[in-house]
C-alpha cells in the first residue's frame, strides 16, 4: 500500500517496544460488538493506474464548460486562470501546511493572508477583511448574524435580487438563531425595495449587486436610508470581477460586504471549493467571524505576521464565539491573491471592461432573436432574458446541441413564477462564435 511506510517488520518491532502482542491489544477500549476483524464491504486497494482510469471515466461523463459555447453564471463564473496560479498553490509548502498557528514557521501562509486581506479590503472599498469564509453564501448568512449581534435586533430583510441559494442559506441559519427573515419577491431591478421593509427590529438589509438578474445597483441611497433607521447595509457580490468596473460597495456606504471570490483564481469545480470574502467597517471588527491575520514583530524586531484577535473565535471563546468556523478556504484565498497580484488594478479594470463588452455583444446578439426579451437594463456581464417557452426545457434542448445556454431561473426558484426567464452570462472566455452559435440555436428553437 503505497501511502503506508510501515513494513511488517517495523510493525512487529514497534509492537514490541509498546509491549503489545498484537494490534488488537491497542483497540481494547472498543466494545467487542463493534470491532471488525474483516474489512468492510467495499472494494480492496487498487493501483494508481486503475484509480486514474475509474475517475477519468466519470470525468468523461461530464460536459465541460470549455468544450463548447457556454453561458452559465448565476453565482459561479468561468474565467481564465493564469497557469502561474495553479502552479504556486500546488507547492508543498502551501498545499500541505496547516493553519498557521506557529507563526515562526508559517510566515509564507501568514504573509499571503495579510496580502489577501488587504486586497479584499481594497476591492470592496472596506476597512477590514478576514482571512476567508467557506463561500459567498455562508459569508452572507454569517453577515446577517453579525448584524443581529451588532444591532441587537432580530430581523433581516433580503432583497428580491439576492441569489436564492444565498437567501435559503440565510433562512436556514436565521431560523435557529432566532432571527426573522423577510425575503422580498424576486425582482429584476428592485434592490431598493428593501427600504420599505425596514422596521425598528431590523438588524440589516441585504442587497446584491450585480444581482441575480445581472442588474447593477447604486446602493448609496439604500445605505443612507438603512443606517438612518439603525439597520446595517449588507452588500453581496457574487461576481467580484465586476468590482474592477463598478463603484465599490464601500464607497457607496455599505457596513458589511460579503462576496463570492471564486471568479478570481478559482475554477468552477462544480460548485466548490470556493472562497467567501468578508469585510466590514473597522468598528465592527470584534464582531466579525473567522480568522484575522495581523502585523507584528519578532524578538529580533523583524516584521512578521500572526493570527490575531482570536478572542472572537471558537477555539478560545467556545460557546461565546462570533462563529463556529474553523477550517476556512485558505488555499482558495491564496489562488485569489496570486491571480489578483498578477492582474493588479490595471489588469482587473481591463478584465472587467472586457467582460462587460462581451456581455453587451451577447445582449446585442440576443436582441436580434425574435421572441427573446431582454429584461436587464444595467448589467455587468450577465443578463436575464425572457424566452417564449419554458427556459429549463430550452436549456435542455440546447445542451443536446452542445450549447450550455445559461441558467434557467426555475433551477434556483422552482416555484418563483419565472419559468420563462433565463440568465445568460459572458466573460472573457466567451467568443464571438460562441455568441453566434447561441443566437443561431435560439432562432431555431422556437
Amino acid at each position, binding site marked *: 500500500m503505497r501511502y503506508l511506510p510501515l513494513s511488517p517488520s517495523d510493525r512487529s518491532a514497534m509492537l514490541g517496544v509498546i509491549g503489545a502482542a498484537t494490534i488488537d491489544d491497542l*483497540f481494547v477500549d472498543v466494545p467487542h460488538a463493534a470491532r471488525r476483524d474483516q474489512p468492510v464491504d467495499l472494494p480492496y486497494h487498487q493501483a494508481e493506474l486503475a484509480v486514474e482510469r475509474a475517475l477519468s471515466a466519470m470525468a468523461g461523463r461530464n460536459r465541460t464548460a470549455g468544450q463548447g459555447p457556454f453561458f452559465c453564471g448565476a453565482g459561479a463564473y468561468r474565467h481564465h486562470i493564469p497557469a502561474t496560479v495553479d502552479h504556486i498553490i500546488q507547492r508543498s509548502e502551501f498545499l500541505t501546511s496547516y493553519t498557521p498557528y506557529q507563526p515562526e514557521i508559517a510566515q509564507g501562509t501568514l504573509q499571503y493572508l495579510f496580502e489577501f486581506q488587504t486586497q479584499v479590503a481594497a476591492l470592496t472599498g472596506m476597512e477590514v477583511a478576514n482571512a476567508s469564509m467557506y463561500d459567498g453564501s455562508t459569508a452572507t448568512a454569517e453577515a446577517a448574524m453579525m448584524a443581529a449581534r451588532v444591532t441587537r435586533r432580530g430581523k433581516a430583510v433580503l432583497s428580491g435580487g439576492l441569489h436564492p441559494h444565498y437567501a435559503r442559506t440565510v*433562512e436556514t441559519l436565521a431560523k435557529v438563531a432566532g432571527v426573522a427573515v423577510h425575503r422580498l419577491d424576486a425582482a429584476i431591478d428592485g434592490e431598493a425595495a428593501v427600504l420599505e421593509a425596514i422596521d425598528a427590529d431590523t438588524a440589516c438589509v441585504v442587497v446584491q449587486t450585480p444581482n441575480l438578474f445581472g442588474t447593477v445597483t447604486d446602493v448609496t441611497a439604500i445605505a443612507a436610508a438603512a443606517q438612518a433607521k439603525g439597520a446595517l447595509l449588507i452588500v453581496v457580490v457574487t461576481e467580484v470581477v465586476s468590482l474592477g468596473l*463598478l*463603484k465599490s460597495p464601500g464607497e457607496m456606504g455599505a457596513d458589511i460586504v460579503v462576496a463570492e471570490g471564486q471568479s478570481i483564481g478559482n475554477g468552477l469545480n462544480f460548485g466548490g471549493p470556493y472562497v467567501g470574502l468578508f469585510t466590514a467597517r473597522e468598528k465592527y471588527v470584534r464582531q466579525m467571524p473567522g480568522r484575522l491575520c495581523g502585523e507584528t514583530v519578532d524578538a529580533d524586531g523583524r516584521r512578521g505576521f500572526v493570527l490575531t484577535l482570536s478572542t472572537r473565535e471558537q477555539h478560545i471563546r467556545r460557546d461565546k464565539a462570533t462563529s463556529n468556523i474553523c477550517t476556512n478556504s485558505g488555499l482558495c484565498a491564496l489562488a485569489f491573491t496570486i491571480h489578483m497580484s498578477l492582474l*493588479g488594478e*490595471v489588469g482587473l479594470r481591463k478584465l472587467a471592461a472586457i467582460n462587460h463588452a*462581451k456581455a453587451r455583444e451577447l445582449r446585442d446578439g440576443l436582441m436580434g432573436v425574435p421572441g427573446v426579451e431582454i429584461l436587464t437594463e444595467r448589467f455587468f456581464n450577465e443578463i436575464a432574458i425572457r424566452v417564449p417557452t419554458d427556459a429549463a426545457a430550452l436549456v435542455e434542448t440546447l445542451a443536446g446541441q452542445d450549447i450550455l445556454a445559461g441558467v434557467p431561473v426555475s433551477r434556483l426558484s422552482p416555484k418563483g413564477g419565472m419559468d420563462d426567464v433565463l440568465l445568460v452570462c459572458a466573460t472573457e472566455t466567451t467568443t464571438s462564435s460562441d455568441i453566434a452559435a447561441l443566437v443561431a440555436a435560439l432562432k431555431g428553437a422556437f
Partner: protein
Amino acid sequence: MSMNSVGRPTRPTLVATVPGAIPATLGGGRGLLQDEALIFERDGWDSSGVDLPEPSSDAFDLGDLLRTAPIGLPGLSEPETMRHYVRLSQKNHAIDLALYPLGSCTMKHNPRLNEKMARLPGFADVHPLQPQSTVQGALELMDQLAHWLMTLTGMSAVAMSPKAGAHGELCGLLAIRAAHEARGDARKRVLVPTSAHGTNPATAAFVGYGVVEIAQTADGRVDIADLAAKLGPDVAAIMVTNPNTCGLFERDVIEIAELVHAAGAYFYCDGANFNAIVGRVRPGDLGVDAMHINLHKTFSTPHGGGGPGSGPVVLSAALAPFAPTPFVVKRGEAFELVEYREGEAAQAFGRLCAFHGQMGMYVRALSYMLSHGADGLKQVAEDAVLNANYIKARLSGVMSAAFVGPCMHEALFDDHWLEGTGITTLDFAKAMIDEGFHPMTMYFPLVVHGAMLIEPTETESKAELDRFCDVLLLLAGAAKAGDVDRFKGAPFHAPLRRLDETLAARKPRLRWRPELSTDVAAE
C-alpha cells in the same frame, strides 16, 4: 556556464564553523532564505502580470456606476509574482518537509494522484448549474463517495454539502433540531464534554442551544454519572468526540448512546478523529445518530494552510429525513440532484450553502478511498494507532503521559514533567522548531494541564518517528538539565524568532496601509 577556478578542483580548509564566527551578511541575506516585502511595497501600481486584448466596446453605459477612484491593487509581472510566492512558501513548514504532529489535525500525506484527478476538466471545469444531463459523471462521483462514507460508518444517509467539520456540526445539530421539532418537542440544551473541541460548543450556541458541560473521569472519558444526571427532557443532543480529544476511545460509548436515546436525545459524534478507527469500527454500530467526517483529515484532502475542507455528515435512519438539500438520488440509470424541499426532501431542514458542496474535495477523497480500498483503510487505522502508541511508549519514561493505557491515534502528555524547570509547554514546542519539527498541538484539550497532543498519523515511517522521539528525548534531557536559554529564546533557526502576539492584538494592523508603512518595530 560557470566553473570554479578555471576547472581546477578546489579544496577548502577543513575547519568547522564556529557559530560566533559566522559573519552577518552585509545586505541582510541569509543564503537561500530570501526576505520578501509585501506586494504593496513595490512599485506595481501601474503594472500587470497579464496580457489582455482591448475590450470591444466601452462601458459608458454604466455612467455613474463606474469606479473612478484608485482601487489600490498593485500588479506584478509574472516573474515577480512567481518569485514572491515561491520565496514566501519556503518560510512554511509542511507535511512534505517533516513530521507535522498536530494532535486532532491528522496531518497525513496528501497523494498527488488526488490533485491530478481533481484537476481533470471533467470535474474542475464544470458549472454547478449545468443541466443535470450534462453532469452525470459528477453526480455519480458524489453518489459513489456517499456510498463509501455510509458503508464505512454503517449509517443510513449522508449530507454531503457541509464545507468543513464545523459546518458539519451545524448540519448535524440542525437535523437534530428539525427532528425534535417534527415531533413538536422543542429542546433547549446540548451536552458537551469539557474536553471538546471549541467548534462543538460554538456550534451548539450558534444553533440556539444552551451548552452544558459534562465532566470527565480521571481516565479521560465522559463521566457517565454526570451525563445521566444532566440528561433530561430539555436536552436535544450530546456531542461526543470519539476517539476523544485525549486520544482515547470512549469505552462506554454504547452505554452513552443508550442513555441519550432513552432520554429522547440524539447522539452527535464529532468524527474529526475517525482516522483512528476507519475501516475497523463503524460509528453506526455504536449508536451514533450524526457524525461529520473531515475529508481533509481522514481522507487526505490537503489542509492548504487552513482550508478548504469538506465535512459530510452521516445520519442515522432517525435523522435521515431531515438532511439538507441538495442530495443525489439514483432514478433508474440516471443520477438526480434533489435541490428543493419536495419528494425525498420534504422534511429537509433547509440549505447550508449555495450549490452542492466541495466537489474538488470529493474527487480527492474518492481517489484516496479507491486507492486504499477497504483493506487499506483498515490498515490506515491500525498504523495510525500503532504510530501513536509507539511515540507514547518511547517518550513516557521521560515525559508524563496524561493517561495510562493504550491511546488511539494520538498521544497526550501534560506538563507535569516540566515542573520546576521554568520551561513551559510553549517553550518546549518552540525548541522543537529549531530541531526541524513542527510542534504538537498545545494547551488542548483544556482538561489537561499544559497539554501536548501528538498525532503522527499512519503516513510516518518508523525512521521518522525515531528521529522525532530521539530529538524530544534530547530536548527533555536539556530541559531537565536546566538548559533554559535554549527554550526561552527558541526558535533561533527558523525564518523568524518568536512573534509579539500581544502587540498584534493590542494595535491590530489587519491590512497594509501606505501611511503605516514605516517600520512597525519603531513603536
